[in-house]
């Protein structure tokens, strides 16, 4: 079992996400995280799926995803093969803001992106381990809310989706 990032390049077609997730559901495989967005090319979407599984399983998942009629291409990478980032938001009560917290924000390179009379919202982008570390610390500061995005990623190899989109 290992962590893999699956990229899916698809047409923008209603229900495509459903068709993709069904493939995971059938095999009882949990999707760790999923993000979808329009790609650099108009009308083409890219879906990034993070999954923990054996490579054999991932190969079969990718083959079955690629079999979906409106999927243009699907491929997978190990963590080493991608540059990836996640974004996390932390909501902290103003009453807990003190010198200690300021130091923590600085050390972790987090940003205050909103300040309201009763709370502030911190933002940190990075790998899960980094956002998780800050989460554990902030639990001691009366953390009100926490949200983390799925992985957005690009492959390290010099290869673009244009070759699949003719």
């Amino acid at each position, binding site marked *: 079992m290992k962590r893999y990032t699956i990229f899916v390049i*698809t*047409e923008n077609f*209603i*229900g495509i996400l*459903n*068709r993709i997730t*069904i493939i995971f559901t*059938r095999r009882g495989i949990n999707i760790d995280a999923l993000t979808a967005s329009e790609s650099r090319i108009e009308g083409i979407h890219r879906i990034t799926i993070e999954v923990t599984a054996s490579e054999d399983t991932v*190969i*079969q998942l990718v*083959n*079955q995803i*690629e*079999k979906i*009629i*409106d*999927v*243009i291409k699907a491929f997978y990478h190990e963590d080493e093969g991608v540059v990836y980032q996640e974004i996390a938001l932390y909501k902290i009560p103003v009453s807990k803001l003190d010198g200690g917290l300021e130091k923590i924000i600085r050390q972790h390179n987090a940003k205050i992106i909103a300040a309201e009379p009763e709370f502030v919202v911190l933002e940190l982008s990075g790998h899960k381990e980094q956002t998780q570390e800050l989460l554990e610390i902030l639990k001691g500061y009366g953390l009100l809310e926490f949200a983390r995005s799925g992985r957005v990623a690009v492959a390290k190899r010099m290869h673009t989706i244009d070759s699949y*989109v*003719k």
Partner: protein
Amino acid sequence: MKDLMIRGADIVVKTLIEENAEIIFGYPGGAIMPVYDALYDYHDRIKHVLTRHEQGAIHAAQGYARVSGKVGVCLATSGPGATNLITGLADALIDSTPLVCITGQVAAHLLGTDAFQETDILGMSMPSTKWNIQVRRAEDIAPAIAKAFFIARSGRPGPVLIDITKNAQTDFGEFNYVPCLGFRSYQTKIEINKTDVERAAAVIDAAERPYVLFGQGVVLGKAEAEFKAFLDKTGIPAASTLLGSGALPQDHPNFVGKLGMHGNYAPNMLTNQCDVLIAVGMRFDDRVTGDVKRYAKQAKIIHLELDPAEISKTVKCHHSILGDCKDSLALLTEAVSQKSHKEWMERFRELEREENAAVVQHDITPTKVGLTMGEVIHQVNQYKADDAVLVTDVGQHQMIAWRYFNYKKSRTQVTSGGLGTMGFALPAALGAQMFDFSRQVVCVVGDGGIQMTIQELGTIMQTKAPVKIILLNNNYLGMVRQWQQMFFDKRYSFTELDNPDFVKISEAYGIKSQKVTDRADLNEAIEDMLIHDGPYFLEVVVEKEDNVFPMIATGCSVEEVRLS
């Protein structure tokens, strides 16, 4: 401009005609009524068969598609009409049968509001279709249907569903039919990799005990001639899967039998003794492989397959040739050397003689008083036409009929293989017969399965389709009972049936019927049935507790195939 505009419902029918659909199997209802109204005007150009249940319609479309090689077309209304198609969709997907199913849907403005007979058929059919789409505007109908036909019949065939809202059927739109020839996200033609062919050829040439397994891919790829040429040149023994039967005539010298749980003895045993295993258009179903951890471990496996997702899915292959087997077989035949494998072939014949003595003799020339399913099929072989189609349901009779039916032509095998759908046979036989009334269609069915779709006798009555129905009646859900006997200590939990008088039922539908209980009457009854002009119902009362052998029990290896 308005003159060029026609009703969406007319677009549906005109597009079906453009796609060369000759026949629709269906059932009307509120949300599909505009299309039925349009059909009224085109009844001279496209036939419609009114089944008695939507499940009957889709299985009939499957039977039609399997025998004709064309796309089966099915029409149903929204809600329950649509959900009744689901079993057929799942069946067609797992058995790669090309279907276009059109369902009506509530008007677009009512979608998502729990309107009368509204159901999310798009969501529900997603895991059981190759592709599906909802159309909400009249002008989108023709492109959607054109694309649906293309997807259903190309690549690895499969079922497609188009859900058309009622407003799209009643609104006017431009009829802009253009055939679909392909699109960027869907590759249908795979160029055969020559290096793969050369590598596989070298492995085959070096083999001492090569062995070919063939499946329905040979039929779907229309590669019967190429397959035969490959066998003729290489002299390799070949065994068929359930759905591959008929792709090679059984009297071909290389044919060694049938694979799997209730297949023949030699083909299963020798899977674990060959040195090279060549799989052509088959997918290593668990009913073929038994325990995969003990399946052909000694062999180099070569897989000729169209669907990349099938490569190494359940059985790891060493060499794969991706693409249409019509192309890959031709190239492979060119690349391999002429050979014969007399000694190796003799091994198959030896084990075949063992099976004959231990099983076949008992089945086809029984000494017991009760009739066996095997002798019934054996007698059918004596009188049937070479191109007779065998349609079976699911269970003991299916395995026995498959084992003993003498397949001589391609597209003569119609059964629910992957899904194992009881109730499939009667409507599928109707559909197969609707393709060609002059063809013999023999429907073999059990007393359990026939009662799941027995209402389709009404469709047979109305269409006068000359289907020959053989009911093998043992008053049991026989296959489940066999398992209860073998693996559940004979605890016959809910498998015995109190049955109605089937002959009376069939006669009530105006179908000529006969019941046979004595061996002495069997031959004549079968002959009478096959020469009868019109549908015929023959009930044969068979031995109550007979078992199907050989058998590979669940979890066992192919070499643990049992003869008793």
